[in-house]
């Protein structure tokens, strides 16, 4: 069976990135998943077992002192050697900041092409076909690579399900540290608050707040509704620019794209740039005091009203029903 390489990211603290599940699931639909992992110390048995559970049939463990101190280059070196070793039909990385830089450099180095921000993959008589959701979901586009190795960056949270579990066979290699033309990592600064809420990209329900919240103090209303619904928190760019919430919560053209079962927009006017990040949600609810707000054009259920009176009542009603 044809090999499919996946670049599995490991945090500087050693944890396997959440993107691993989707990458291995996508790889399993195309062939035999090989997990390529770069680390400073040989992989622990637990990590190998975990990658097997997620579907990795083989683990290519590249050990190098440069992991954690040189940006992206060790991953490109490891992938390029794994391409020689496994002759894969495709290479998959997360569409993360590290993943897409590794994909881009690899494609140039080995003579392939990048298919970017892929939301679904399929094999058509051995040809790897990538599906993309373009212009905020306005178009679905399929693409292939002609004449070289397909290198796909997979949108995080887009691939559902899991690959069949396997017992991973490990191939450990040592990589020489590359220092030429390197970007050096001096320090990692972890995000302070590790939220107990679901992750924005993969949450089934997202509650987002906009400029209509009026202040960062008032943004707590978004948090309260999110917690009542077990939802992730999002925001419009206006709310981020106003400093109500961190940029990592931004949903839209230049932020995260989400496709949850339920998206609730509070005090968000719904500029086209915001809709580009959420209009593929299954159900959209909008509450806004401006009845002409464009968000209502895409809302399945809209309330023209004051979020500060409607939302607390909604929280009460939801809590009453769940009791």
């Amino acid at each position: 069976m044809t090999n499919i390489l996946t670049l599995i990211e490991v945090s500087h603290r050693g944890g396997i990135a959440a993107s691993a599940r989707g990458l291995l699931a996508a790889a399993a639909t195309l062939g035999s998943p090989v997990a390529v992992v770069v680390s400073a110390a040989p992989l622990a048995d637990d990590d190998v077992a975990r990658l097997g559970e997620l579907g990795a049939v083989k683990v290519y463990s590249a050990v190098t002192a440069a992991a954690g101190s040189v940006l992206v280059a060790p991953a490109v070196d490891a992938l390029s050697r794994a391409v020689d070793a496994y002759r894969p039909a495709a290479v998959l990385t997360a569409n993360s900041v590290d993943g897409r830089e590794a994909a881009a450099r690899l494609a140039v180095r080995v003579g392939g092409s990048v298919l970017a921000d892929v939301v679904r993959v399929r094999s058509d008589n051995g040809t790897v076909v990538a599906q993309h959701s373009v212009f905020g979901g306005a178009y679905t586009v399929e693409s292939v690579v002609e004449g070289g190795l397909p290198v796909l960056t997979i949108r995080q949270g887009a691939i559902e399900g899991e690959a069949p579990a396997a017992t991973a066979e490990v191939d450990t290699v040592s990589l020489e540290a590359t220092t030429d033309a390197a970007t050096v990592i001096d320090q990692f600064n972890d995000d302070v608050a590790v939220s107990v809420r679901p992750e924005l990209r993969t949450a089934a329900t997202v509650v987002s707040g906009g400029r209509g919240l009026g202040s960062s103090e008032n943004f707590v209303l978004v948090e309260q509704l999110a917690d009542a619904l077990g939802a992730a928190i999002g925001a419009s760019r206006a709310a981020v620019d106003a400093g109500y919430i961190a940029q990592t919560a931004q949903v839209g053209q230049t932020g995260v794209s989400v496709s949850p079962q339920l998206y609730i927009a509070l005090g968000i006017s719904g500029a086209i740039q915001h809709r580009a990040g959420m209009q593929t949600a299954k159900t959209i609810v909008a509450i806004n005091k401006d009845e002409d707000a464009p968000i209502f054009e895409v809302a399945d259920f809209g309330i023209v009203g004051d979020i500060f009176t409607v939302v607390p009542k909604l929280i009460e009603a939801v809590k009453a029903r769940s009791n």
Partner: protein
Amino acid sequence: MKIVVLVKQVPDTAEERKLDPATGQLDRESTDLVVDEINERALETALRIKDTNKGTEVVAMTMGPDQATQSLRKALSMGADSGVHVVDDSLSGADTGRTAATLAAALRSTGFDVVVAGNESTDGRAGVVPAMIAEHLQLPLLGSLISAEIADDGVRGVRQGEGGTLNVRAGLPAVLTVTERFPEARFPNFKGILTAKRKPVITLSVADLGVAATPSRSVVISTAERPPRAAGRKLIDDGDAASELAEFLVANRLV
């Protein structure tokens, strides 16, 4: 110091953007074309260095059809010293690999100490061209920065990673990409608009650059437009809207 800023003309995100169903490529006729906002922030980054160090030379470079020259004029009116326009009919529909190979050749012929680009364009959103260019030129890339200090002896920056930020650095020459966290761009002033007309813009073709066709390429095989969303119920809150919404959520098994 010579800084080249990569500029891309894109459809305005404030309008509905279209793909040509026959080719799967961007329909350039249907929307206004503008300089991508992230490129304006990239240019602002270079211009701020020029503000404090008059010896700095800022070059705006673009690849695109004839009308992409407008984006260079905008950059010149904001304060760039000169422009480079890579234009060639054979580049129509170029994929990221072809684009990066061509821009890398243009950068090699233009010369630079630092290349500044946006982290991703608003139309393609692939975010891979700067890294491909860095690979072609065998240079370090400092990608997805939220801040940067560019000095004669190197670049230091803070990169937005997945679970936090990273402090990164590299020597020159280097490629760096900026995110929306960088300051907004200045507006061109009247003097800038007037002097822009006298600033040089060099045009380069594929033959000028001697870029070989890339053997591998990505090809669009199908394009389907998503049906527009229809608006659903819209209530004016009279005091009961919250409980009606709660019922709607329950009826649809959303809570």
